[in-house]
């Protein structure tokens, strides 16, 4: 494998509502900043890949509008995934393995404030059998949480503790909107909205964009391993107390000796399950940035996890793990393990 490094990372400060930027403006801001951090210009980029969703942006071909932000002229080698930017990074990593390109630019953008994200995600279900029933992702997560609790793998208190930790860590993250800290008791006193889940157990949706510059060789945190797997879209055939796609992706990405991990946690009830599936020891620091419970920008939060895990390496960690997920009940999982440049 060719050694691929994270040479630059930038994100727009995630806001609850961003009425200022359109696609091109968001993308222009983060790609210029990531290239600057990498010390590269756009002419150095050999491959560009983006992640976004027209359903989230509420307009067709929003990813084409976004190309204004990178100056795609003369025509460039470019690709797009209708997914989180973490999967765009995976495609760029594969492209760099071909051997003829040494620099790749990855970006993503999303605005949760335009529509109802849960209603949009509900449309990912099987169109013949599940989607007509209107199963929203939080209800699916509640079905999963109930099973975890019944099997003795999770308690309501642990769900609350996950929220407490995320909000505490989020206090030192200047790039997410302010969020109030809460005690476990305060959280458990809140009403149940999807029994056994409470409103604060869901990730807080935000608007934003992010970009990462990948280089073959050079400095910066190195991608030690990366893999992604997907479980069945039929919730009934899965054991929801396991997360096999995350387990296999973690094994193949080399999830051992991890100092800190940035996990994409759509619902607080899923964090402990993810840690168990990926074999993370209790000593591993989880979501020092605050994670998605503090700021989940759709199609962006996964790439941000990789960027945050890279920042942890830059500030002294030896080996970090970034995780991204999509689909109901952690259906699809991507794991990226980063280490210091040798």
């Amino acid at each position, binding site marked *: 494998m060719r050694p691929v490094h994270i040479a630059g990372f930038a994100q727009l400060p995630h806001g609850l509502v961003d009425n*200022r930027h359109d696609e091109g403006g968001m993308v222009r801001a983060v790609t210029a900043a990531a290239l600057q951090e990498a010390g590269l210009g756009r002419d150095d980029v050999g491959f560009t890949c983006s992640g976004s969703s027209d359903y989230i942006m509420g307009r067709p071909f929003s990813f084409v509008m976004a190309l204004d932000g990178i100056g795609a002229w003369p025509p460039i080698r470019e690709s797009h995934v209708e997914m989180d930017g973490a999967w765009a990074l995976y495609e760029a990593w594969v492209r760099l393995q071909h051997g003829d390109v040494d620099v790749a630019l990855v970006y993503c953008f999303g605005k949760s404030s335009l529509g109802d994200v849960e209603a949009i995600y509900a449309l990912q279900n099987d169109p013949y059998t599940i*989607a007509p029933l209107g199963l929203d992702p939080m209800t699916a997560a509640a079905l999963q949480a109930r099973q975890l609790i019944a099997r003795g793998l999770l308690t309501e208190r642990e769900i609350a503790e996950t929220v407490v930790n995320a909000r505490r860590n989020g206090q030192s993250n200047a790039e997410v909107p302010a969020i109030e800290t809460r005690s476990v008791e305060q959280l458990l006193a809140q009403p149940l909205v999807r029994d056994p889940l409470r409103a604060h157990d869901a990730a807080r949706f935000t608007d934003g964009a992010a970009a990462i510059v990948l280089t073959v060789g050079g400095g910066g945190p190195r991608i030690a391993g990366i893999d992604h797997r997907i479980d069945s879209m039929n919730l009934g055939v899965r054991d929801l107390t396991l997360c096999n796609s995350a387990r296999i992706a973690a094994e193949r990405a080399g999830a051992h000796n991890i100092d800190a991990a940035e996990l994409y946690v759509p619902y607080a009830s899923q964090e402990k399950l993810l840690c168990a599936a990926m074999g993370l020891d209790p000593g591993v620091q989880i979501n020092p940035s605050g994670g998605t419970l503090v700021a989940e920008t759709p199609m962006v939060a996964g790439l941000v996890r990789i960027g945050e895990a890279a920042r942890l390496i830059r500030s002294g960690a030896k080996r970090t793990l970034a995780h991204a997920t999509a689909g109901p009940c952690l259906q699809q999982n991507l794991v990226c393990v980063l280490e210091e440049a040798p």
Partner: protein
Amino acid sequence: MKPVTEFRSPTKLTYTVSAGTVATEFLSAILQRRIVGRRCPVCTKVYVPPRPACPTCAALCEEPVELPETGTVTTFSVVRIPFPGQLLEPPYACAHVLLDGADVPLLHIVGGVDVNQVRMGLRVTAVWYEEPQPTLASIRYFTPNGEPDADYASFREHV
């Protein structure tokens, strides 16, 4: 067994979309019957409708440029048959109008003239509706203004 060929699964998504700073500037000007583009600081091209970043230079376009409501038809097509969703009654002329001082043409309608008179190089002026809304459709159409046709050479860089 009879094959199932149809079932109902109504889906509705509602969005609250904002135009963003740059399109808001453009659409607010339309309300005052003004046309405002933006200039790229690198290649100096004037884009209308304006773009937040130059699509060829990736430079931020921050300078608004007031444009006249006169321009030149750089290409056109006469729509002669009806189709679903059509807003105007055929025949009518759909055209690229290069506003004076702009570097990219604006897609619009050429009206107030027999469609067989529409041609490349035709000089036109905007005709506005009485009460403009924040949409480019507030310009009813561009109509010939009587100036002599522009030479092809004068707009060949913009076709």
